[in-house]
């Protein structure tokens, strides 16, 4: 009988495709918007992920998120280093500076200055050159997306608006009227602000930056072996009165800032809710109508000896098949669209929770419409089959 129930579903082509389209579209909207939201949010803490060596991040107490740099006094570094349980602590500069390109154009760049001695904070995946190149004078490392897009140079200087090529090793920029030579190109995770990121040494970075009494953006801390990260964190906070985060806490603090202080979650939330409503409106309505259309056959089956639970089982099976197909199709299209668009154009990150949430939404739509349909089946009077 299960086969017949499924054939009934597939056989009503118009309604079946309507149900499938509704569920797929709902899944697509929910999963895609959620994936883009997660992708965008994950970009807000890309710097933290690019610096896995640090157990703790020390910042000014008023800092709200990673890019909200509030420079500290340089002496903060020594105070942190003196805390028991700190194996090492290195400075990090982070700031937005204007770069003058070879064509004369100007481009805002995110400049990261890493510890001169250890170079901790330089991206691990070098595409061209080596991190040690930063030990040469005036040298910087740029990342691939910036090299290909905003820092790209015209193929012909005679035609600055013509075709462009990626900027390459050996070419020069000006940062705050100081020469900077590209010595390496690295692959990094996309950032939320999507401006080119430039890596250099801490001392060189503060040289590029406008003169400021406070230049220390953050301090990266490694906890001594055998020491508890949380205990050392509490100790640094207590002894320096600075803010100290584990990488996970820092990432969440950043996400919470964007969630609470911007309209991003509301915008995505509205899109997700709309997707859900589309699913309810189209698929739910179609499935309900499909059951109504088949009510006379269910009535005949009831007359012929089908128990109500048996009929409900058939309706549930039809709902489940439609749900699984709609969910699968929707997630498949979401994944294909997400993976086919380059990462620098679309922030897309489908974590395992997203298919689960989408499945939950589809289950809700299918169960709700099935329950409405089932209500009609339960209330169905088999004697109605004699009434034409």
């Amino acid at each position, binding site marked *: 009988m299960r086969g*017949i129930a499924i*054939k009934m579903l597939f056989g009503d082509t118009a309604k079946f495709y309507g149900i499938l389209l509704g569920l797929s579209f709902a899944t697509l909207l929910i999963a895609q918007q959620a994936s883009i939201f997660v992708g965008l949010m994950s970009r807000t803490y890309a710097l933290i992920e690019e610096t896995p060596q640090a157990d703790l991040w020390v910042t000014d107490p008023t800092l709200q998120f990673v890019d909200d740099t509030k420079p500290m006094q340089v002496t903060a570094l020594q105070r942190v280093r003196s805390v028991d349980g700190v194996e090492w602590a290195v400075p990090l500069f982070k700031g937005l500076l204007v770069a003058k390109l070879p064509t004369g154009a100007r481009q805002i760049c995110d400049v990261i200055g890493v510890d001169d001695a250890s170079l901790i904070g330089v991206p691990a995946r070098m595409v061209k050159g080596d991190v040690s190149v930063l030990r040469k004078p005036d040298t910087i490392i740029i990342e691939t997306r910036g090299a290909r897009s905003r820092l790209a140079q015209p193929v012909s200087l005679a035609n600055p608006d013509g075709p462009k090529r990626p900027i390459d090793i050996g070419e020069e920029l000006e940062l705050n009227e100081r020469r900077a030579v590209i010595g390496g190109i690295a692959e990094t995770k996309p950032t939320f602000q999507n401006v080119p990121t430039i890596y250099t040494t801490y001392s060189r970075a503060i040289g590029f930056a406008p003169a400021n009494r406070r230049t220390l953006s953050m301090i990266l801390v490694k906890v001594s072996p055998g020491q508890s990260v949380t205990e050392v964190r509490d100790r640094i906070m207590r002894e320096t009165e600075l803010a100290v985060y584990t990488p996970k806490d820092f990432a969440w603090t950043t996400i919470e800032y964007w969630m609470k202080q911007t309209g991003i979650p509301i915008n995505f939330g509205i899109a997700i809710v709309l997707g859900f409503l589309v699913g309810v409106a189209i698929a739910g309505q179609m499935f309900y109508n499909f059951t109504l259309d088949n009510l*006379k056959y269910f009535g005949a089956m009831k007359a012929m*000896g*089908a128990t109500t639970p048996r009929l409900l089982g058939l309706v549930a099976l039809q709902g489940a098949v439609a749900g699984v197909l709609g969910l699968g199709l929707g997630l498949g299209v979401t994944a294909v669209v997400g993976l086919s668009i380059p990462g620098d154009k679309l922030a897309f990150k489908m974590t395992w929770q997203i298919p689960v949430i989408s499945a939950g939404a589809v289950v809700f739509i299918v169960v709700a419409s099935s329950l409405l349909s089932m209500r009609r089946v339960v209330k169905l*009077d088999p004697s109605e*089959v*004699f009434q*034409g």
Partner: protein
Amino acid sequence: MSEVANSIVCRQVFKTFGTGDSMVRALRGVDLEVRYGEMMALVGPSGCGKTTLISILAGLLTRDEGDLAVLGTDPSALSNHERTVWRGQNVGFIFQQFNLIPQVSILENVAVPLLLRRHPKKDALARAAHLLEEVGLKGRESTRPTKLSGGQQQRVAIARALVTGPRLLVCDEPTSALDGATGQKIMGLIRELTTASEHVVIVVTHDERIYHFADRIAHLDDGQVTHISTPAEALAESAQRAGDAARRH
């Protein structure tokens, strides 16, 4: 006549729908006996209670009052679930509008009552194929109902009604959607397939052209069986009424 020989016995069966101002007394003390091996036609004007009566006899509705025995059981005394199971085991239905599932083949349509009773699919389809052969549709098993004529669809419905081997066959206006010649063939087929002495067939109809297939005809009016006649008597009464009406005009 002994009640043992009767497949159906109704004594003062009442049925009311609704309450208060909207109350409708559908049956007002129906008395009826139908023998095993008999085809009984129920005739009467619209709203006289025919459909209510067959619904009660088939266990689709319950009576309010009276005594009822259908194939030795009072279906109205059973629980909902028991009555559903009883119907599946004892009653076959032929509907006015066939009620064949359009999305599946006629073979699967015929097998539905067996599949609902969780018969193995292979056996159910084999039995359905046998019944389709009996109603003259061998070779059309994989056809969808919508590809068949009305008469062929009703043949499928007959096969479906008989596939479980029911002792009571309930036919609701089985020829109303068919032309005269096809209706005769369909009734002939029903008669032919239910000749065994353990069968009983109840046919609700307005179609005088099929009266002669019935053994007896029960005339209902205003929720009561007014009298029982032979088909010839029923046709004569009908002719008499038509004549009276013509003279009045």
